[in-house]
């Protein structure tokens, strides 16, 4: 749609400042705009840098669970899982079967809530303000009720411990989760019917922000962003942690790597999560949830480990260097959105300003993770 003109144009810097209505947190982009097209983009992060890594060095591993919760605040169970599995592997702990099953149920339900939040916020960016947002949050509330019954908190759980779980689930857990899954299936179908074949939605998201597989691998993307580009890589299948290798589920892969594909990948992942939860509920047996002899002070032997999990946004990893005490010497948090955000510039340059918002929404950013 090129228009020939003799006008003298100027490239204007536009600041999408730390506070903007897209509800993605405190992220700032400075766009250089020529007419409506974005010519250059410089992202500025660090407005939520709270020193999680430094604080974790002065805290016991179990206190660090609370910090990890608040770092990845939309998928806290995955963040806790990374930390807890890393500590268990360092110490050589055996986790009982029932604890693993419950961990997987919680983690997959958390994946559903996180993707619901994505659908809500993303559809608000794409223009459907309100409808899909409220649908999504209704589904989140049902699942958060379960989390509250089990862990006591709606959002910051602090439930996993190195070795297993903090306490056992209530007696009616299985029936409650089954009842909620009915709602969840219906909710996913509602959102599907509302958005997927919606012409306006497709016009706003098809062909926008495409990234090729080579570029995605070079930038280090992971999670749905990478799978939408066509790379079939899921940490749950490639390097199974917990007992994911026992479950039967598919990994949705996109084709073009554009925004629409990312939305489709996440929608399908929600359905696969429901499948995994059902299988885990079938296989839930009675048993202990912590190993027999757990010390009070969790002293890890000197060593180091990097453990990544497949969080809803990508790979969330924890690199722990332990010097033998009960506090880590160095805890580095590898967050998914940090790497995913590096590719933002390549995705946005050449598109319109309005598309910049949609592409940013499709990255499904959690600033707590990016800035730590």
């Amino acid at each position, binding site marked *: 749609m090129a228009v020939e003109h003799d006008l003298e144009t100027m490239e204007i810097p536009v600041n999408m400042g730390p506070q903007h209505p897209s509800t993605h947190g405190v992220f700032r982009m400075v766009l250089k705009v020529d007419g409506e097209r974005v010519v250059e983009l410089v992202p500025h*992060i*660090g407005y939520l*840098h709270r*020193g999680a*890594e*430094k*604080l974790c060095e*002065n805290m016991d591993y179990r206190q660090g669970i609370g910090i990890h919760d608040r770092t990845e605040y939309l998928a806290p169970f995955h963040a806790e899982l990374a930390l807890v599995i890393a500590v268990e*592997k*360092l*110490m*050589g702990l055996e986790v009982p079967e029932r604890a693993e099953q419950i961990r997987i149920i919680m983690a997959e339900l958390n994946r559903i809530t996180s993707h619901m939040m994505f659908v809500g916020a993303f559809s608000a960016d794409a223009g459907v303000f309100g409808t899909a947002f409220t649908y999504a949050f209704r589904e989140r509330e049902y699942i958060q009720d379960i989390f509250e019954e089990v862990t006591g908190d709606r959002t910051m759980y602090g439930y996993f411990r190195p070795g297993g779980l903090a306490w056992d689930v209530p007696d009616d857990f299985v029936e409650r989760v089954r009842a909620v899954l009915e709602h969840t299936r219906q909710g996913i179908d509602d959102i599907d019917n509302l958005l997927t074949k919606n012409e306006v939605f497709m016009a706003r998201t098809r062909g926008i922000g495409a990234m090729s597989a080579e570029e995605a*691998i*070079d*930038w*280090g*993307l992971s999670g749905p962003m990478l799978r939408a580009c066509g*790379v079939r*890589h899921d940490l749950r299948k*490639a*390097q199974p942690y917990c007992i994911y290798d026992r479950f039967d589920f598919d990994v949705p892969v996109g084709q073009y790597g554009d925004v629409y594909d990312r939305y489709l990948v996440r929608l399908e992942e929600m359905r696969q999560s429901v499948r995994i939860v059902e299988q885990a509920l079938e296989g839930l047996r009675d048993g202990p949830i912590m190993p027999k002899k757990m010390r009070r002070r969790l*002293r890890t*032997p*000197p*060593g*180091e*480990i*990097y*453990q*990544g999990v497949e969080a809803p946004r990508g*790979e969330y*990893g924890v*690199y722990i*260097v*332990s*010097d*033998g*005490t009960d506090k880590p*010497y*160095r805890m*580095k948090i*590898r967050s998914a959105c*940090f*790497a995913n*955000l*590096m590719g933002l510039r390549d995705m946005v340059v050449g598109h319109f300003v309005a598309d910049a918002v949609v592409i940013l929404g499709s990255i499904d950013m959690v600033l707590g993770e990016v*800035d*730590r």
Partner: protein
Amino acid sequence: MSSEERLEKFRPGRDGHEARKALRVPPPRGSVFDLFKEALPDVPMEAYQAVKDVVIEVSRGDVIRVLRTAKEDPRLDFRWLRCLSGVDYMDKGLEVVYHLHSYTRNHDVTVKVRCPQGDPRVPSATAVWRGADWYEREAAEMFGLVFEGHPNLVPLLLPEDMTDHHPLRKDNPLAEIEEWQGDRLAGRAEEGAGGEEEG
């Protein structure tokens, strides 16, 4: 060596990394390290087996060559730079740790480079992966590392005008209590602070 024996051998405290060195286990036969030795026979590398990965330590001069070979050699095929972090070992130096993963071969490796505390320069891995960009910026501002060849090594997470000291270094303690921060600001501002930077 079992977990209990390991715990007995260490000395509690921040000196544990010396104990770690004594407990090093060489990597098993047929591990990734053998592939590295085949691909780079002339590069001096030390390796040991950590809990999950094989860790390979190289020197500053060789690190870019090692990383590039790791990415491009078909037997290794480490196309994904998972994580790049810095670690502060105080007077033993600063270390940069690269975690790599291969999609096709499904193996991992950890590559480490150590540089002395007084001379924290490391060549930049952006020559090999573009995705090392922000990791290096963050490590630079948190530890004071200088990555040579990085296109844009400006502070990433810290405020632009408050990069006086590097937070993740071990000689920077955490703030103590609530009034500490206010007192520190008031006291230092009164002193005049003629060029005196907070250390």
